[in-house]
Structures are given as structure tokens and as C-alpha cells.
């Protein structure tokens, strides 16, 4: 079936002249000048080049170590301790790297964001088809980020209204720099604090031989395969592999100005992000293992409850760091996910869509960003809003929505007309299809345990 025609479907025609420049072109060119100067220098500085080119990959991986993700990891550690889930979390980050690396190539080669590319290539119908999950998923996820912010700061006695409004203002302040580079570096600086879970893990004194044993054998798995196991499996996958990551990283790669020459560095950026985020995720699991050892029922805990419950085992400092970690996870994700929504909005409607845009040129982009963050922040403050419900479903929905998103990703990255020599290799396709099948199977397992819970022990 051919894609539905629309007003943006006209084939490319020869431009009458060079397009006029906009503010974002000047800023992006400024960033590229530094990259080019480094490449052209008689004595190349590889680390400086890496520093200039990293960003989207680390941000997307640490951005996805968000509020609900860290809570999922904490619940995993509290319920299952050191065992199966440690290597499983590493596997989820391998899956995340496989799909995110494709977005780097797509962005660097086509210079179009993910939503824009689907629209351009397959038309309005399939564009909206692929966007439906993103819009719902991003709104729900943003709500959970503000829940995490509220919970993290709630540990310190900060009122919910103050926490949420303060976080909203931080998101706005970072964005209003109107400079992608500045936005990226500030957000990277905040994202580093995701590693705050490492000292908490050290304070929890996990048994090193048990950790090694878990990585080597994927065991133990207390309680075996049951409904709770399947739910946490889905939540941990959704904590690492989600549709917004595809849209965000490709748009950020384009906004940063990466070109085909930078694909290797983009790949390294994504790998570094995956490794750092996996370490933070595993540290979170290890940090809460005292709750597992002491049989603390943590199934319905949110961020602040984890910090309070950990206090007897990791001390006041450890509990404080844990609460700060939950707050940071929510804040960084609020910044990246609201940007992801704004990028997709601008790409789909044909408005300027860059963090380099001036306010005058890019006001619809900034308005969309503030609207996304504002609606989510507002929902969190509604009395008796079903916040626990949203936290419970957000990662599961992300996992369920991922297979269609990966199909579009694979279609685009295998399109030789747009990708040229950077088209997917056979091995990359095997991995990509493998990830899709794995996600569908995990979803089906979840569905079966929901419809027929008697099949598995409770």
C-alpha cells in the first residue's frame, strides 16, 4: 500500500538558490568550526575531539535512567537481591546500544530528525501512526519524572508545589540558553550525578563473590518465574529501551550538527552512555539489596520510601544520596524528554525545531517544550491524581510500544537511497530484528500472565 499523499509529499526539486540562513545555522556552524579546527590541527587531540562530539548518546542513556527506571531497579534489587537481574540489566543496555547506534547513523547521514524522516519518507499517515505512541508515552513518562522529583525532594521536606515548580523553572532556564551546546553541557553536568548511586551501593556492602556469581550464572532467581518476575522484567526493559530515545537521539544528533564523518564518535558517545548508565543501574540494584536481605516489603515503594527504608543500612548520608539520585534522575529526564516532545512537534508540523533557535524563530518549538513540561508538572500537583497508577504502567507501556518503533527504525536504516554506504549491515539487522522479537516475546509473556495468572505461581 503506498503511503497516503500529503502536502509534504512533493519530490525534492532543485533549489532556486541557497536557502536563507537562520540563527541556528550560525550557532551550529560555530560548533562545527571547533570540530573542524581540531581535525585540521597539525597535532590532533583525540580527547578534545571526543569531548566536542559526545553528548546525544550519553544524554539519551542517562536520560533514560530516569525516575521510574531507578525505582524499577530499586524494586528489582529489593525483591530479587543479587542474582538474575544484574546480567539482565546489562543485556538491556546492549539492546539499547544496538538500536540507538542506528539513530546516530540516520541523523548524521540524513540531517533529519526521526519524526521528520518518517514523515518525509512515508507520509503523514505513517508519521502520525508512529507518533501516537510517542505522544502518549512522553506525557506519561514526563509525569513520572515530576513524581520522582517530588519524591526525591520530599525526603528533604520540600513541599510538592515548590519541588515541581522549581524543577519546571530549571528545565526552562536550561532551554532558554537558546544554544544547543550550552543546553547539552549543562544537562550532561546534571546527568553525571546519576553516578551518585555508586557510593550508596558501596555503603550497602554487597557481597562481591555473589555479584561475580550472578554475572557468570544469571542466578539465583528467588521465587522462580512468576507474575511479579514478568512484570519487573518488562519494567526493566522499559527502563532502558523506549521510543522517546529513538526520536530524541536522532534529533539531538542533527541539532548538534554531526555529519557522516562523526559517526564513529557518535557510536563511541552512545557506547560510553550505555556503559555509564548500566553501571548506575546496577549500582541502584546493589544499593537496595539490604532491603532484600532484611525482607523489607518494597513492592509499592516510591523514591522517598526507598531512601527512608535504606537509612538504617546505609546511614543518613547514603539515604540522602539515594534521594538526591532519584531527584536528579527525574530532573535530567524531564529536560531530555520535554526536548524530545518539542523536537517531534516541530519536525512533524514543519516549524523550526532546534535548541539553537532564537525565541522569535523557534517560539512554537519552545512553546511545545514548555507545554509538555507544564502539563506534566500540573498533573502531578492535582490532588488524588492516580500517580501510582502512572508510575506502574509507564515502563511497561514503553516496552510494549517499542516493536513498531524499531520496525520504522529498521526500514529507514536499511533504505539505501537515504543511507548510502551507511546502510545497516546484515549483522546489525540480525541484532535489530533479534531485539524486536525479544521485546514482542516479553510483551506476550506479560499478556499471558495477565490473562491467565494461574499459569504461573504468584
Amino acid at each position, binding site marked *: *500500500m*503506498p*503511503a497516503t*499523499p500529503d502536502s*509534504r509529499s*512533493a*519530490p*525534492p526539486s532543485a*533549489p532556486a538558490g*541557497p*536557502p*536563507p*540562513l*537562520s*540563527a*541556528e*545555522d*550560525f*550557532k*551550529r*556552524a*560555530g*560548533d*562545527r*568550526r571547533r570540530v*573542524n579546527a581540531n581535525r585540521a590541527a597539525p597535532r590532533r587531540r583525540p580527547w578534545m575531539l571526543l569531548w566536542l562530539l559526545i553528548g546525544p548518546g550519553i544524554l539519551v542513556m542517562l536520560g533514560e535512567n530516569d525516575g521510574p527506571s531507578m525505582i524499577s531497579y530499586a524494586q528489582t534489587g529489593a525483591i530479587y537481591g543479587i542474582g538474575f537481574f544484574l546480567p539482565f540489566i546489562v543485556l538491556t543496555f546492549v539492546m539499547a546500544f544496538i538500536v540507538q547506534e542506528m539513530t546516530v547513523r540516520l541523523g548524521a547521514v*540524513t*540531517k*533529519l530528525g526521526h519524526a521528520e*524522516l518518517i514523515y*518525509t*519518507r*512515508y507520509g503523514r499517515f*505513517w508519521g502520525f*501512526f508512529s507518533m501516537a505512541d510517542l505522544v502518549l508515552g512522553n506525557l506519561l513518562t514526563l509525569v513520572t519524572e515530576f513524581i520522582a522529583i517530588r519524591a526525591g525532594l520530599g525526603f528533604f521536606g520540600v513541599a510538592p508545589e515548590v519541588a515541581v515548580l522549581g524543577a519546571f523553572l530549571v528545565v526552562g532556564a536550561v532551554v532558554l540558553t*537558546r544554544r544547543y551546546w550550552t543546553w547539552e553541557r549543562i544537562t550532561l553536568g546534571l546527568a553525571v550525578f546519576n553516578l551518585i548511586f555508586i557510593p550508596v551501593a558501596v555503603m550497602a556492602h554487597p557481597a562481591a563473590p555473589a555479584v561475580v556469581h550472578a554475572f557468570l550464572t544469571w542466578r539465583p532467581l528467588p521465587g522462580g518465574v512468576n507474575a511479579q518476575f514478568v512484570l519487573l522484567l518488562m519494567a526493566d526493559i522499559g527502563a532502558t529501551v523506549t521510543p522517546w530515545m529513538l526520536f530524541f537521539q536522532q534529533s539531538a544528533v542533527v541539532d548538534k*550538527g554531526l*555529519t557522516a564523518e562523526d559517526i564513529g564518535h557518535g557510536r563511541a558517545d552512545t557506547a560510553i552512555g550505555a556503559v555509564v548508565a548500566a553501571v548506575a543501574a546496577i549500582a541502584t540494584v546493589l544499593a537496595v539489596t539490604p532491603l532484600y536481605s532484611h525482607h523489607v516489603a518494597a513492592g509499592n515503594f516510591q523514591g522517598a520510601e526507598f531512601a527512608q527504608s535504606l537509612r538504617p543500612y546505609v546511614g543518613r548520608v547514603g539515604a540522602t544520596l539515594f534521594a538526591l539520585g532519584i531527584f536528579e534522575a527525574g530532573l535530567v529526564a524531564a529536560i531530555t524528554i520535554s526536548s524530545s516532545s518539542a523536537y517531534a512537534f516541530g519536525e512533524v508540523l514543519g516549524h*523550526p525545531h*532546534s535548541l539553537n533557535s*532564537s525565541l*522569535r*524563530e523557534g517560539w512554537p518549538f519552545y512553546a511545545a517544550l514548555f507545554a509538555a513540561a507544564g502539563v506534566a508538572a500540573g498533573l502531578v500537583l492535582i490532588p488524588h491524581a492516580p500517580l501510582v*497508577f502512572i508510575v*506502574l*504502567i509507564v515502563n*511497561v*507501556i514503553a516496552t*510494549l*510500544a517499542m*516493536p*513498531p518503533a524499531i*520496525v520504522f527504525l529498521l*526500514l529507514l536504516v536499511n533504505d539505501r537511497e*537515504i543511507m548510502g554506504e551507511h546502510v545497516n549491515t546484515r549483522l546489525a539487522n540480525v541484532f535489530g530484528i533479534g531485539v524486536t522479537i525479544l521485546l*514482542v516475546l516479553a*510483551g506476550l509473556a*506479560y*499478556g499471558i500472565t*495477565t490473562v491467565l495468572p494461574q499459569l504461573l505461581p504468584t
Partner: protein
Amino acid sequence: MNLPAPDSDREARRHPVGPPGEAWVRETLEPEQLAKAPPRFGRASLSRGTVLLLWALRIYVVLMTCLVGLQIWRALHADG
């Protein structure tokens, strides 16, 4: 046509990132990196098999999302 738009000119003066003028911008960026670059790619059609796959996955997402709702409803009911 080649003159910077007033807005971009103002931004460039406010946040100087390179030499004056716009020639350096065009030299530095690839033509398709410009914000107002014309579209380069035409439309591609999806094969019948791909369309079927996408619809099958859409049905899968809708059904599974309903099951998520069912599970949450059960959980809330059990708590109540």
C-alpha cells in the same frame, strides 16, 4: 537572498560564534545542515508485507495496553 535574516543577524551579534558575515557559515555547514534546506528525499512506499506487519504490531500494542489496564484494575481492586 544571501543576506542573513534580521533575526539571525541579531542572534549572531548577541552570541558571536564566528567571523562577521555569513560566508563562513555556508563553508562550515554541509548544505543539507542548513535549517531551511529544501527536502532531499522523495516518498517511498511500504510493501504489503510491511504494512501488514505494522498493523499487526499496532493491534498488539492496543491489546497489550488493554491488558496493562486490566492488571492495574485488578491490583487496585485487590488493595481496595
